[in-house]
């Protein structure tokens, strides 16, 4: 019988991780890595939840040690973790501790006669590769959302008594300014190199205002031109977004951009090149000059609400 351990933290919605674990394991337990003593909420649809907390869990090394111990104690052969920045560090260390086979950022997993396979994106998002996981311990990670509110029965946080890992000393920790975080935006107007000068960004700004949207952009706008800061960048090295409306203006639609926005509900693109790859990812392809269309669109939207 196969047992999975789903790893999460109090502010994450782990339902996708539980679903992934259920697809390949008969039994699924959750372990909540909590900040401090107290209680945590039981993870729904699992066969049991434990919660751990303590100073050693401040570092990735400490969490990896604690999870390796938990996996051994529970006889878990499958570990499913969130694909957040914090857990990416932990996942690599845990893979080493368990000598496991790891497929990060999996879309789905299944069992075949050969063993467990996982599907994941590679080559900048062009391809889905299927990987066969050839070790006794299998580790998977998947994208998760922040949990809105948590309710359910409570479990007590067990103090983790492992020693503090040596070598790293935390000097300071400050919350980053998350305003302008596009990952939860409802509407986004995004622009790329099709916009010819910095002054023209104001025109795109007017469109985003008229649509009640946040402003996004492609990488060259941040990295080469420095017209906007990194939080506005959509794509592989920027933010992954899934708004109800994604409006791409003068963006070619290279795969590194597409992976960051292709899960948006409704995608509109304006581009003067009828063969621009962005159109393949769009619901509405507007072929034309953005300098002719955007100002008229801003006016028409204003007239509509007036």
């Amino acid at each position, binding site marked *: 019988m196969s047992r999975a351990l789903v790893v999460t933290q109090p502010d994450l919605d782990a339902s996708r991780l539980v679903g992934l674990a259920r697809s390949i394991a008969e039994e699924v337990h959750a372990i909540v890595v909590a900040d401090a003593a107290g209680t945590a909420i039981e993870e729904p649809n699992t066969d049991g939840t434990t919660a751990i907390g303590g100073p050693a869990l401040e570092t*990735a090394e400490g969490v990896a040690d604690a999870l390796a111990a938990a996996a051994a104690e529970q006889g878990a052969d499958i570990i499913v973790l969130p694909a957040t*920045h*914090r857990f*990416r*560090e932990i*996942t*690599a*260390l845990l*893979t*080493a*501790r368990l*000598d*496991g*086979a*790891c*497929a*990060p950022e999996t879309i789905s997993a299944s069992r075949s006669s*050969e063993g467990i*396979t996982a599907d994941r*994106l*590679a*080559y*900048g*998002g*062009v*391809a*889905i*590769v299927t990987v*066969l*996981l050839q070790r006794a311990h299998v580790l998977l990670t998947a994208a998760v959302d922040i949990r809105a509110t948590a309710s359910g029965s409570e479990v007590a946080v067990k103090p983790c008594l492992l020693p503090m890992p040596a*070598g*790293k*000393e935390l*000097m*300071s*920790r*400050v*919350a*980053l300014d*998350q305003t302008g975080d596009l990952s939860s935006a409802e509407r986004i107007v995004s622009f790329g190199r099709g916009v010819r000068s910095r002054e023209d960004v104001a025109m795109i700004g007017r469109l985003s205002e008229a*649509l*009640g949207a946040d402003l996004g952009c492609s990488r060259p706008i941040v990295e080469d031109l420095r017209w906007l800061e990194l939080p506005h960048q959509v794509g592989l*090295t920027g933010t992954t977004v899934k708004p109800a409306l994604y409006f791409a203006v003068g963006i070619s639609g*290279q*795969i590194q951009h597409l992976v960051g926005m*292709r899960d948006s509900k409704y*995608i*509109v693109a304006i581009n003067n090149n*009828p063969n621009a790859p962005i*159109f*393949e990812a769009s*619901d*509405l*392809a507007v072929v*034309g000059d953005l300098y002719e*269309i955007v100002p*008229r*669109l801003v006016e*028409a939207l204003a007239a*509509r609400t007036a």
Partner: protein
Amino acid sequence: MRILVCVKHVPDTTEIRFDPVTKELRLRQAPTKINNYDEHALEAAVRLREQLGAEVVIACIGPEEAGKTMKTAVAAGADRAVLVTGPWAGEIDPAGTAALLAGLARTQGPFDLILSGDVSEDGYHSLVPGILAAALDSPFLRGVTGLTADGASVLVDRQTDGVEETYRVRLPAVLSVSSSLNEPRTVTTLQVMKVSMSKVATLNASDVGLDDALFQPQAAATRIVGIRPAAQPRRQEVLTGEPDDVVQKLISNLENAGVLS
């Protein structure tokens, strides 16, 4: 200070396409280059070299063709490069890569600081630096956005989910860096051409104390068994013609889609 920079030789992912007829990934024809993210690790190492007089060694696990990436890295300011290659080079998985890098670090070292980029453009696993750190029993941080050497330790700024942290990390340590750490210098083709091949050592697994058999796909932790295109095109409507017409149709489409406020 001795610094090892782990660099991957990758296909240019912006050039990878699926053949619309055969549905096969056109990987072989794609041009290859140094992994974008590793350039930032290299830049950080070269800056430390300029400030402190460190020795910078490049490490790469990959095909013989990666020699050109090694020369590029030396041209950017590294002292020398070590490429470990073998029959497994085209297919090696992250755990295998990390094991060979650990072997390389042990046999060519000791190193005070091991740097790499946070991810590789092709595989996008983000596993190698962490597994390497565990193998060497060194402290590890990823997402590094600031780095200052400070005697037997380094001061490291890094960003993770919504927080910025500063750590003092004891050396030897393994760090993987964010592309916002610095702006890599550009190297010209001429500078690369001028690099003598004597600065690039090409080794086998046995030279770093490991056996080729460990890295064959059948023995590896993970093995790719299938590959297919990621996204199906959306069923789209095309608007073209007079801008005023286009705008009217555009607005009614937005209304019908229910995405206007």
